[in-house]
């Protein structure tokens, strides 16, 4: 639920990093916290357990600069990865403007990723939000690990695409971030589908972290235009 404050000339937006446990959601925020100028970000708040697992959420406000005389403030949140914290996961989604799904690329985490993706769709639907029509980006994290699954497999499992029935939108749309790939295309079966854009990342070193944030922020601001 973005808020435009004409009195203080600010645009406030909420972005949530979602995904299975230990996938690197908090690491994304920590990297952003470490890299952006201290005067353009607030405190990194973590409501975590003693073992540093996110209990409720992590929160980081960042100013992305001024657009049309309005300061753009993005509030970045992560949710707890573990399923038994689903009640608090759902609370964080309230009023969300954009979603980053952080997937753990390791082969053995495939099932946990799929479970978290399904849980995201379910929780969004409970608020009456349609994820397929919102700013939504997928990050395949931990690409540096030897047991990382190929992106093709991750795409097939987590981002197979959703059907587009609106004829006006049924036209091939290339993926601006991956040459030769399309976000909207027609399957051999004749069905038109759309996929979320994706990024490969190694959040511990920061690879792909800002690319992901930039893409989702852009989608959020576009959705306001």
């Amino acid at each position: 639920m973005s808020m435009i404050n004409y009195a203080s000339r600010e645009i406030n937006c909420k972005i949530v990093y979602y995904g299975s446990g230990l996938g690197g959601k908090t690491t994304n925020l920590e990297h952003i916290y470490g890299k952006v100028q201290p005067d353009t970000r607030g405190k990194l708040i973590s409501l975590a357990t003693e073992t540093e697992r996110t209990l409720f959420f992590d929160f980081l406000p960042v100013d992305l600069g001024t657009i049309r005389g309005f300061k753009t403030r993005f509030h970045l949140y992560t949710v707890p990865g573990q399923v038994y914290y689903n009640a608090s996961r759902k609370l964080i989604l309230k009023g969300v403007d954009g979603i980053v799904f952080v997937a753990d690329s390791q082969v053995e985490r495939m099932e946990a990723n799929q479970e978290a993706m399904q849980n995201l769709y379910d929780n969004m639907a409970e608020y009456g939000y349609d994820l397929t029509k919102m700013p939504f980006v997928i990050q395949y994290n931990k690409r540096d690990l030897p047991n990382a699954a190929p992106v093709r497999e991750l795409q097939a499992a987590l981002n197979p695409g959703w059907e587009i029935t609106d004829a006006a939108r049924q036209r091939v749309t290339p993926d601006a971030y991956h040459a030769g790939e399309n976000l909207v295309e027609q399957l051999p079966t004749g069905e038109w589908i759309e996929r979320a854009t994706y990024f490969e990342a190694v959040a511990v070193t920061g690879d792909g972290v800002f690319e992901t944030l930039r893409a989702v922020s852009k989608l959020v601001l576009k959705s306001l235009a």
Partner: protein
Amino acid sequence: MPVGAASWSFTEDDFAAITQSLQRFLHDSNARCALLVDRSGQLVATVGEQPKFDPTAFATLTAADFSANDQLAKLIGESDFNSLFHQGEKESMYLADVARRVILVVLFDNRTTLGLVRLKMKETVNELTRLFEQVFARPTEAQGGGPGLLAGADDEIDKLFQ
């Protein structure tokens, strides 16, 4: 089904009306400071003594506090708790729901009493509820500068990360 969360905006006139109402409340109740936070955790306004803490973090935690308590209410068979009270040794805070979309947070110390704050807050909450219902009823498009405000912003965002 809505696409996502509805966005909302408020004008300088709204801000003036909100501030005026809260200033009157602070005067009548002798509370130190009042903050308005939207349910998604964004700070809308601060009136009274400027807080020494980080107001953005405070707003986020307030929204989380309220949301968590809403769920607790449901577990015990209530639809919600429309107000919350946190008592400290010197400083206390009282939180109240406004129009289901905004939370009024009042910070006060031993210069006043919970009874007086609660009493005065009731009228203020009613007043703010009316104000915010008008704000939410107004379509964003009517703001003159809503849509189109961000048209062509892609390049500017790209630049911000370079």
